[in-house]
């Protein structure tokens, strides 16, 4: 039987991958492969995400119109799709990041309590 895997090996909490994608794209538009490498590198290989899981996430963002896509030509002269942030994507990122930070602070203070 084919297992239907909604989020292949998603160790992260829901939405984390999307935030990372949006944050990365905020700095510059990138094609899929470059995006995967950039996320991997900047997270210092700490986050073990499957590269493939990037693509369903990108489709979700496309559908929600948080990113848009344009055709371009790569250095190897190949047609590639370059993703960039839409204005609503930027807004979405802001709200998500701030709520994300609030959550992190919350978790950290709980953890600090545990230690003392």
């Amino acid at each position, binding site marked *: *039987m*084919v*297992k*239907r*895997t*909604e*989020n*292949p*090996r998603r160790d992260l909490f829901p939405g984390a991958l999307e935030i990372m994608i949006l944050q990365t794209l905020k700095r510059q538009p990138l*094609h*899929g*492969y470059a995006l*995967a490498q950039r996320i991997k590198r900047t997270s210092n290989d700490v986050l073990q995400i*499957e*590269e*493939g*899981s990037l*693509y*369903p996430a*990108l*489709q*979700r963002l496309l*559908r929600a119109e948080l990113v848009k896509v344009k055709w371009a030509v*790569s250095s190897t002269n*190949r*047609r*590639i*799709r370059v993703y960039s942030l839409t204005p609503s994507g930027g807004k979405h990122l802001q709200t998500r990041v701030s709520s994300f930070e609030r959550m992190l602070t919350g978790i950290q203070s709980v953890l600090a309590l545990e230690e003392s």
Partner: protein
Amino acid sequence: MTRLKQFFSRKRLYTDMDDEIAFHLEQRVEELVAEGMPREKAEAKARKDFGNVAAVKQTAREAWGWKWFEDLFVDLRFGIRMLNKNRVLTMAAVLTLALGIGANTAIFTLLYGLVLRSLPASNPGQLVRLGIASTAQPDDQDGSQMTFHMYQTFREEQTSFRELSAWDASEVQLRDKQGLIQRHDAAMVTGNAFGLMGLQPYRGRLIEPFDDVPGGPSTGWPVVLSYGFWKGYYAGAEDIIGKKITATDVPVTIVGVAPPGFQGVWPGMQVKMYFPLHFEPLAAKMPDLMEEKGENLLGVSVIGRLKPDVNLARANSELTQLQTGLLDRYIPPRLKQIPYFAKAYLVASSARTGLPNYLTHTYAKPLYLMQGLVGIVLLLCCVNIGGLMLSRVAARHQEFAVRTAVGASTTRLVVQYLTESFVIALIGSALGAFAAWYGSDQLLRFFRDPMMGEAISVHPDKTIFWITLAFAVVTTLFCGTLPAWRAARTDPGTLLKSRSPMGEKKNTTGKLLVPIQVGLSLVLVVMASFLSLSLVKLRGERAGFDLDHVTIQTTPFHLLNVKGETKLDLYQRMVDRLMQMPGIDSAAATSQTPMTGVKLVADFQAVAEGSTPPEDTQMAFNDVGPGYFRTMKTRILAGREFEPKDRQLNVCILNESAAEFFFPHQQAIGRYIRNKVNDDFREQVACQVVGLAEDAKFYDVRQGPPRTIYLPLSKERIDTALGNLVFLIHSQTKPQAISAFRQALSEIAPTIPLVLFVTLREQMDAALGSQELITLLANFFGVVALLLSALGLYGLLSVSVTQRRGEIGVRMALGATPAKVLRMILSEALGLLGWGVLLGAFGVFFTMRFVTAMLHDVSAYDPRLLAGVLATLLFVTILAAVVPAIRAAKLDPSETLRSE
């Protein structure tokens, strides 16, 4: 990009993404190779890092949320392919369904149009009709009419209604372009009637309160056209507003067109024009009509709109409080002795669907019955298709087993199966709807108002489309679920191992379906036979007159405004002229024609020497002119019939039953009859019996000839009681009668319009119309039902014989003779029949009471009929079983056993 655009370009989206993923992998491999990894290893590592490519693609596609839709497409394509592979089965299923759904849609179109559709008013649930009803006549509880004065008073006193309005069905005459005068249905309404409904004009304006004043508004009488009449009669002319026309010799101005879809408040009737209520005396040429309406208990129909916070119960309780005063005040004292009025009360009921009328009265019950009938047929069709599909499941077990084994989920299989059923149902309903569209027009011809020229109007609309679709969905669920459930329960292990197409399971579900089919057919066949027998009896009954060669015409001579002897002379002149025409055997005028369903009775007594008159002296009566009996071909057994000189109530003719009743075993001719003067018959009669006529039916073909007294057309009654008389014309053909009448009328009264010509047979058929139609349908579907269950049984037994080849082979090898095998299969069939009959008996028991009202002279449990039906079923069963049984008996045991 919109979602819709995205959907249609999703192929592009998907390939772009596939392309992108391919690029990703390539890029990664190149990088790894550049780092010094061997290409093969690099490719493997790239894939490993990436994850399951297929799963990623699938998940990414699902992100767009179209999966269910794509699955549906796949299912549809697959379903159509599977159905295409089994063309015979598909055709059978589609045609069966087309029949079932077509019949249901057609009948429902009528039922909806005539009984269920709401008036196209705003918030129709608040509309209420009010009128007089009586506990003395519990069958007739319409209560939508009252006197105009009662309406006016109640409107002032009540608090439950936001507003009340009065309606009256009437007619006007228009002269068409050829100069012929034609009658058109019209509604006379109070000025607030349209406002109360919340209707908006399509053009111009509707009737307003300032229009409805005695004498008409200062700008002249207005008329509002119905949308259909404007489109048809005036070809939708844009400059219609302000046009002056002449309606029944009165100049009126067209002020507006009513909204499309609104055809008045009487379902089935097509009102052409709307006038203010106070216009009616002019339209009817009866100057005193408003005073008459003020006292006539059927003067106006009343429609009100409840206040938002008032419900029907509260309105009724207010009505109960006010009714004593109203009834006291407005029912004339002389009527109060009559039981109907002594027990009269006022009642309010919903007018959501409009006002009850002749058509709804006559056809509502038959239509419900027919809907039930075709409902059973649809059920039967579903069961049958269910059976067919089930046999397909049996054949496709292998396929389902394989699909389950490779991971198809149960839901997917069920959905797949339901999709297949849906394809069948959709095609079936499309065909059925197509048939119904044309069929309902044909059916409508059975629904006639004998007094109305035009066929009633019922138009299919959007609701009907949705209903058809609903039928399709229900059918799908009905015939798809069972096979789907069976298919989904398939255990792949046992099935893949087993070589037999059915596994080791027995076809128990199929065995359940056959008795249901038999039972349903039994119900239909029993119903059909009873109805047919009843109709045959009805038609075969001797009426006592010539139904086929008498054409009737009720000329509106009241328009000439002649009275008394002049009026009698006018009718006599017409009759005399008609008699001179070629092709006319005889003609006469009469007050009543037979077979209208109108029951006129009054109290008559013999002026007897010594003997006390029998207690029940109620008797049917008719005022008939000279030549009536000759024209109707009712024999005069003794004495004479009326002559032109008989214009007083001093002579009369009795029929046999009446003569026997008044003067048992005595000569009736020359004796005297008198009457009790009351509201049924207000003139004093003291008449000598001058003739004895044979018995003839009178108001209804379903009932035997009543005791009847015939009176001459008399000076005493011609102005007060008789109204317009009916011409009876006896000729070989109807066209002869029509042309003769046209000629005579153009000579004697050229300004008078013609009304519809009908023969007595047509009039009676109209009265029997629904019965005829139901019988026709019941018979047709009875045969279909038999055919369907025979097919079902045949299919089941065929599969069963194939399945049991091994078993039968063993039996025969052990000494069972072919005859014994034959008996075995036949007895299996008879067993199923037995269960079916048992089920059917229950069905018959529950359904017959709906039909008994329509039966004439046939007992609902006539043993001979039931035996006949059972014999038919037995015959069909054996016919269906005999082929598979012979096939089983002819099996060669050695060959069968070898092949196992």
